[in-house]
């Protein structure tokens, strides 16, 4: 229970962090540090059980039972090692952040850092590969935002980092799927114990390589190494935590975790040792070239991660022990160095070792702590870094394969260690050595230095008392190799090969340091023809160019060309199906009634008209006619709710269309005869196929089982008698919720489109001038009828809509219909106003839409009270004078529907009904319009309202062009 508890508390802390930040400012860092330590203490209570008794803390709860994915958590020694990093270094960095940042708001920073800690914690305790993958990706996302929040200059690095680490995440996903499919479970501990890793080399190598790619991207190994220096665009605490101590160690964790399954796989050994050492040496050389301390530390991190990867590749118990110790040692010295570089940056204002000099005299404590950590990194006794480096050396000599491999790997590692020594001294000497020029600088406050002091001194203390770590490292070996480690850490191991290696490292390292000017000159050139960032950018650009080429094949700005394709293809399919001779059952009962033919004739007439007319208004009128006949058809087919909805939608469509049409030329664009005949051909074929298909494939059956069920059970199950409405708000409310979201989104998109593009100006026709001075020309005069009627009709419509809303469960009505009636009321109110400014709707439409979707979702959540999302709750409320009112939360859901639909309708009315071209757009734009109907009009016509043009452009006048 303790694992999910800690995890949920970390997530809770993340959510609460912005609030804390608001109240206590940057000092929220101290609070978070204390919380991290407290959570660490909670786990420390359990730690002895894990370390000394070889037990694990486990927790399991269902997550996706259908595919057998669980919230499986498991904490063993390896997990504990990384938890110490996450919470321990996390606490230090949080405390450091409280001083590093200037006063002000840093809520998002603390949120992301705490969320990252939660993700990282989840990653190392997850015992389900799907869960592991989710946390893995979450750390990537946190890293992206933490880099990106630094500012504009960090955008490109953040995106590069994201693309690269996400690519690695895809590899991990591939590995996860391969393992689940092959082994049949998603439980990590079971997967790792499966014999398939040994028995099926093809599977083991495939999954192993995918795991390696994932780990290499996360832990910045060649050829993915360059993202880590790139990520230094982030602020220093982020670099110290994510990009030195914790996130980049996720790859190391993954490799250690899969070590029991893959340590004997040759591909695994070769790739890890080869790439690891290559990265170690290459990055160390890069580090020696750098002058920016932070960049230098970034390459140093890449190099150290290379050492870790290589030693995991060796795969012996001693090697895994070395990996464990060095992970800890590296986290301590590297976090310290990052924090101190941040301190220098803050105090001196530079991180460039060419500008920094002699700081040891003015900042002696900072210098001392930095030297301590750098010596640990260089592998100088008596620090923890010395012990871990000796362990690494000893392990490299055990490299698997022919006898010469061990010494060879050892020799390469010594070269890497010498370079490490050299750049460690370069850091210390660069910042603190040399003559002191800036004598006015002072040591920062001790509180600022405290976190760095803790981790730095921990490296010293653990050097002397390394034996304290033995049980933990033993346990890590047991987890990763399956055998007890028998590890004894200490400064003195007697005269052994690794001691000679250390002596050589330090001796040559000192020589390199003494000849530093020669080395600088030697390395002051490009070591490789291209940089990683350049390669990445080229690949990125090439991918985009390739995508554009592919799109080029079908790119055209004519929607007709795009639309023609599906019509032609679908029609061809339909004809093909008919030609193969489908046998269809007979109709059970006659499906056609005489009145159908009347409606059919009306629809056909309307359709022919709308196809032939060139007048937009005539087209709109015919569209309305067709819509009304269709709604009649719905009534005749026994669908009163559908018919009502159609009727109301038709009214509102016409209103909205009028608001748009008044801005457009009066006639449609002319098209050529060829195009017309091609379109007609396609249209006739499509229509024919649709008719034959509908005739052949629909209605030749009795009522569906589902329909039968709803008719039988609706009243019993829901208390409603309007079966269609019960389906909408009860049986299939999830569909309705989805639909509502689409609807709401359409409203938001309309707002967005108009926000970006604005509306084109109104079409002021010269004829309008004729009516000036008459009631028709006056915005108030020509709406007198509408206003008089609207004054009492509009409120009545809104009342009626509320009535329809409430009764919907039993009689025709419900949220959709009610909202459309209400919308019609608003439309009337809108149309009868004398100008857009006077229109009585000033509603927060986005609020309405969001409120509607929100209410509906909330009602859905209430349903959990009775066993499931969107399950309606019922109550019988006693009425005065006897009887009950049957209340169901489905009504509340319907209110959500109502609000959203009203919101979208009001959005369209209000935003399309605005009078003038939005600011920033020249009214003169209209002059370029083919319509050419802009006239210098008298002032009175400058403020006409929308009805004015509508009156003016009645059908008939449309034919003038």
């Amino acid at each position, binding site marked *: 229970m303790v694992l999910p508890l800690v995890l949920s508390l970390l997530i809770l802390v993340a959510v609460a962090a912005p609030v804390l930040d608001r109240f206590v400012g940057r000092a929220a860092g101290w609070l978070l540090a204390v919380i991290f330590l407290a959570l660490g203490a909670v786990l420390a209570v359990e730690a002895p059980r894990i370390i000394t008794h070889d037990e694990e803390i486990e927790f399991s709860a269902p997550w996706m039972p259908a595919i057998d994915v669980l919230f499986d958590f498991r904490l063993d020694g390896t997990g504990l090692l990384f938890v110490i990093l996450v919470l321990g270094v996390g606490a230090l960095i949080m405390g450091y952040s409280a001083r590093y940042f200037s006063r002000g708001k840093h809520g998002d920073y603390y949120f992301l850092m705490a969320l990252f800690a939660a993700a990282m914690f989840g990653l190392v305790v997850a015992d389900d590969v799907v869960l592991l993958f989710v946390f893995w990706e979450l750390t990537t996302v946190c890293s992206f935002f933490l880099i990106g929040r630094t500012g504009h200059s960090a955008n490109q690095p953040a995106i590069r980092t994201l693309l690269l680490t996400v690519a690695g995440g895809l590899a991990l996903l591939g590995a996860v799927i391969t393992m689940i499919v092959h082994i049949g479970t998603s439980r990590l501990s079971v997967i790792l114990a499966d014999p398939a890793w040994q028995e099926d080399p093809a599977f083991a190598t495939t999954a192993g390589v995918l795991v390696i790619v994932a780990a290499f991207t996360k832990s910045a190994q060649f050829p993915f190494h360059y993202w880590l220096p790139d990520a230094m665009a982030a602020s220093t605490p982020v670099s110290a935590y994510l990009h030195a101590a914790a996130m980049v160690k996720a790859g190391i964790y993954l490799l250690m975790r899969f070590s029991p399954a893959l340590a004997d796989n040759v591909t695994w050994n070769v790739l890890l040792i080869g790439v690891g050492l290559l990265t170690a040496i290459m990055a160390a050389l890069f580090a020696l070239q750098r002058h920016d301390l932070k960049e230098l530390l970034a390459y140093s991190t890449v190099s150290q991660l290379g050492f870790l990867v290589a030693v995991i590749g060796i795969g012996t118990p001693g090697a895994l022990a070395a990996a464990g110790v060095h992970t800890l040692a590296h986290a301590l010295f590297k976090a310290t160095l990052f924090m101190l570089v941040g301190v220098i940056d803050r105090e001196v204002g530079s991180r460039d070792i060419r500008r920094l000099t002699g700081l040891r005299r003015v900042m002696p404590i900072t210098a001392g702590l930095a030297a301590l950590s750098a010596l640990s990194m260089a592998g100088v006794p008596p620090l923890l870094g010395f012990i871990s480096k000796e362990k690494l050396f000893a392990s490299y000599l055990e490299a698997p394969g022919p006898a010469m491999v061990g010494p060879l790997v050892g020799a390469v590692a010594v070269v890497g260690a010498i370079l490490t020594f050299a750049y460690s001294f370069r850091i210390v000497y660069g910042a603190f050595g040399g003559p002191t020029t800036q004598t006015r600088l002072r040591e920062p406050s001790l509180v600022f230095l405290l976190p760095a002091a803790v981790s730095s001194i921990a490296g010293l203390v653990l050097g002397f008392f390394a034996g304290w770590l033995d049980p933990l490292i033993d346990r890590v070996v047991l987890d990763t190799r399956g055998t007890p480690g028998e590890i004894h850490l200490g400064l003195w191991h007697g005269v052994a090969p690794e001691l000679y290696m250390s002596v050589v490292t330090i001796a040559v390292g000192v020589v390199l340091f003494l000849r530093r000017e020669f080395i600088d000159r030697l390395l002051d050139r490009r070591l490789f023809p291209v940089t990683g960032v350049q390669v990445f950018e080229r690949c990125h650009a090439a991918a985009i160019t390739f995508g554009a080429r592919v799109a080029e094949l079908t790119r055209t700005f*004519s*929607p*007709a060309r795009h639309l*023609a394709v599906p019509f032609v293809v679908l029609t061809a399919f339909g004809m093909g199906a008919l030609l193969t001779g489908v046998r269809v059952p007979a109709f*059970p009962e006659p*499906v*056609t009634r005489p009145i*159908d033919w009347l*409606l*059919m004739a009306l629809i*056909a007439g309307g*359709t022919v008209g709308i*196809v032939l007319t060139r007048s937009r208004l005539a*087209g709109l009128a015919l569209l309305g006619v067709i*819509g009304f006949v269709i709604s009649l058809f719905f009534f005749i087919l*026994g*669908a*009163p709710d*559908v018919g009502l*909805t159609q009727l109301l*939608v038709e009214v*509102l469509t016409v209103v909205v269309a009028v*608001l*748009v049409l008044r801005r*457009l030329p009066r006639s*449609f*664009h002319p098209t050529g005869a060829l195009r017309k005949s*091609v*379109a007609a051909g396609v*249209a006739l074929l499509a229509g024919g196929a*649709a008719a034959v298909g*509908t*005739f052949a494939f*629909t*209605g030749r*059956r*009795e*009522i*569906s089982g589902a*329909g039968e069920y709803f*008719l039988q059970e*609706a009243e019993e199950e829901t208390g409603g008698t309007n*079966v*269609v409405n019960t*389906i*909408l708000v009860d049986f299939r409310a999830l*569909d309705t919720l989805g*639909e509502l979201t689409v*609807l709401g989104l*359409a*409203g938001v*998109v*309309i707002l967005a*489109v108009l926000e970006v*593009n604005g509306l*084109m100006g109104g079409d002021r026709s010269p004829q309008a001038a004729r009516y000036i001075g008459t009631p028709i020309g006056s915005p108030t005069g020509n709406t007198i009828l509408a206003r008089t009627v609207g004054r009492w009709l509009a409120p009545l419509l809104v009342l009626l809509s509320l009535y329809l809303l409430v009764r919907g469960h039993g009689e025709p009505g419900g949220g959709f219909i009610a909202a459309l009636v209400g919308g019609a009321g608003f439309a009337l109110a809108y149309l009868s106003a004398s100008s857009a400014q006077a229109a009585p709707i000033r509603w927060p439409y986005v609020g309405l839409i969001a409120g509607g979707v929100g209410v509906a979702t909330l009602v859905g959540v209430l349903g959990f009270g009775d066993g499931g999302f969107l399950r309606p709750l019922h109550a019988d409320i006693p009425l005065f004078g006897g009887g009950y009112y049957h209340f169901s939360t489905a009504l509340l859901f319907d209110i959500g529907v109502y609000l959203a639909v009203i919101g979208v309708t009001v959005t*369209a009315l209000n*935003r*399309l009904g605005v009078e003038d071209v939005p600011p920033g757009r020249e009214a003169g734009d209209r002059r370029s319009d*083919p319509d050419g109907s802009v006239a210098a009009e008298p002032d009175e016509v400058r403020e006409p309202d929308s009805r004015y043009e509508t009156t003016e452009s009645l059908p008939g006048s449309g034919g003038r062009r």
Partner: protein
Amino acid sequence: MSLALVVGVLVAGGTFLVLQRGMVRIAFGFVLLGHAANLVLLSAGGAARRGEPLLSIADLATAADPLPQAFVLTAIVIAFAITIYMLTLAGAGEGDDDTEDRR
């Protein structure tokens, strides 16, 4: 038969309109195609049973299938949202609602 013919007419008209030039006609075409799709849905429920599925008055033997009706009802409202969105596109921006480059 009658429904099938109506669907055919609407699909033919709608197809013709969406292949024309100008956003408004494309929007009109989509409205017609939407009508056609809705009628196909209702036809799939069976046009022989035409009683209202209102339990207070319904005869269960002849009541129409309520499920396609629920589908159609939501479809109408979504189609409405899409229609006004397309009309907004027609009314937004410079010039007119032309969808093709003028030559």
